[in-house]
């Protein structure tokens, strides 16, 4: 019992060390292409600007959406940006490359390394800049909304914790969807679903009713990703909702891992 505890600590430390080396390596790579970096940040700001404009136009016509005011909604929009940036810093880019790995047979190399292939895949392509503009603008929006809503600073630790839970849900969804890559071979469209998943996460959970609400909670949990953390900061704290998000995160993560491990067996190693 004690020994397995020690080996678990070792495994975690090793994972952190590996992550550190991959991050350092990729940062060096990203710094070489400075023009690309400026373009990427510019694009993120452009798209975030359009998202904010969309809600600004809505709120020019209405005062609340699902009970959420404009400033509370900015926290929702910003939270999606923060989760996305965290995802790019941990795993997201790797899944965008997965189709190429599988098609060319390079995925073999990931299978023989002494680290789980899904973790290796994510770490190998960690990117600070791919979504940095969205992350920074997300932080600004959350800050701006938070300043207007007037919730105390004490809410911040729970907010950050719930962002982490949302990140787990996002990862689980990404892993589950990408499990299909071993049949479909192309991952571009699969990841467009993952993209839409986050694009639709910025609307408050309160707009859903009936069967839609159940689906968007347990099957495609877009109603939890932004709403649960944002509700903490927006002064709409609901412990029931927080418990629900944790349960969904644990359930989805377990399900996605089983699905991914099963799908791995269908990898045909199609190298030439």
């Amino acid at each position, binding site marked *: 019992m004690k020994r397995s505890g020690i080996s678990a600590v070792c495994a975690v430390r090793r994972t952190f060390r590996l992550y550190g080396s991959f991050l350092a390596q990729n940062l060096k790579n990203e710094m070489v292409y400075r*023009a*690309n970096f400026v*373009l*990427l940040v*510019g*694009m993120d700001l*452009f*798209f975030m600007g*359009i998202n904010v404009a*969309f809600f600004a*136009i*809505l709120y*020019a*016509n*209405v*005062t*609340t*959406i*699902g*009970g959420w005011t404009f400033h509370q909604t900015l926290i929702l929009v910003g939270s999606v940006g923060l989760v996305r940036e965290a995802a790019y810093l941990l795993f997201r880019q790797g899944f965008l490359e997965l189709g190429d790995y599988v098609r060319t047979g390079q995925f073999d190399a990931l299978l023989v390394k002494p680290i789980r292939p899904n973790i290796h895949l994510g770490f190998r392509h960690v990117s600070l800049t791919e979504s940095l503009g969205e992350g920074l603008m997300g932080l600004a929006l959350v800050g701006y909304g938070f300043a207007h809503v007037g919730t105390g600073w004490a809410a911040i630790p729970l907010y950050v914790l719930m962002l982490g839970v949302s990140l787990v849900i996002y990862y689980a969804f990404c892993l589950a969807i990408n499990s299909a890559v071993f049949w*479909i071979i*192309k991952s*571009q*469209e*699969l990841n*467009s*679903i993952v*993209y*839409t*998943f986050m*694009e*639709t996460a910025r*609307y408050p959970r*309160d*707009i*859903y*009713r009936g069967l*839609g609400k159940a689906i*968007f909670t347990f099957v*495609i949990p*877009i109603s939890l990703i932004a709403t649960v953390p944002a509700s903490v900061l927006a002064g709409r704290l609901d412990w029931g909702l927080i418990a629900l998000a944790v349960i969904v995160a644990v359930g989805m993560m377990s399900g996605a891992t089983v699905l991914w491990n099963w799908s791995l067996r269908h990898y045909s190693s199609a190298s030439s």
Partner: protein
Amino acid sequence: MRKYLTVFRVNWQNSLQYRAPTVIYILGYTLYISVLLFLWTAIYGEGGRMGPYSLSEMMTYYLLQFVINSVVLSYVSWEIIDHIREGFFSHFLVKPINYFAYWFTINLSGKLFETVLILLAAAGIGLVVGPHVAFPSDPRTYATFLVAAGLGLVLAFELEFCIGLIAFWLIQVRVFKYMLQYAVFFFAGTLLPLDLFPRALAEVAARLPFQYLVFVPIQIFLEKRPAPLADFAAAGVWIVAVYLLARWVLARGIVRYEAVGN
């Protein structure tokens, strides 16, 4: 003509062979539209109202946008960019085929399978939100809507063709292309009906050609455009103008072309 029919047939078979990506794409877009329909229902349920639109008009707007997005809007710039960047464009310099007409054919045949799927998906959503769909009172509206959508299809292709040709000048086109494409779609009315924009922005949108891709056809369907014939004429003028622009850009691009790769 026969050579274009062949291109059409080959590409149509191609798109049938790769069915899964199209199906997945439609599923993703269905998710997006469903969420928006929930959004409008919630807003109107709270007593809100978006400008001049009733709830059923808003639902109809997004349901039609859902279909137009696949049937009218064009996404061929990806392939055009790859063609130019990887040097396949060289083949066209020595073949008796018109580059513009070639891609127009690809654009059309690539849409057939997607059109069938999107109509099925729209019918599915329509069954759920059925009572909320605002059908035209005058049966002739269907015909004018189809003409408007047809003009939008041609104009959308021309604009997308021009975006693709940027690859003659820039090597890293991805980011630039996304922003241009999205600006076109934004001013076309895919995100929001243009008459909900703030006044100044709505004025700009009303002077740009992009409104004829999405906003104007849907307004015609909702019977909110007083003179569809004037819209047809304006769209026609833009189609000619953008066609001339595309030819000019292509001619300049060929001069710049470096035939990298092949």
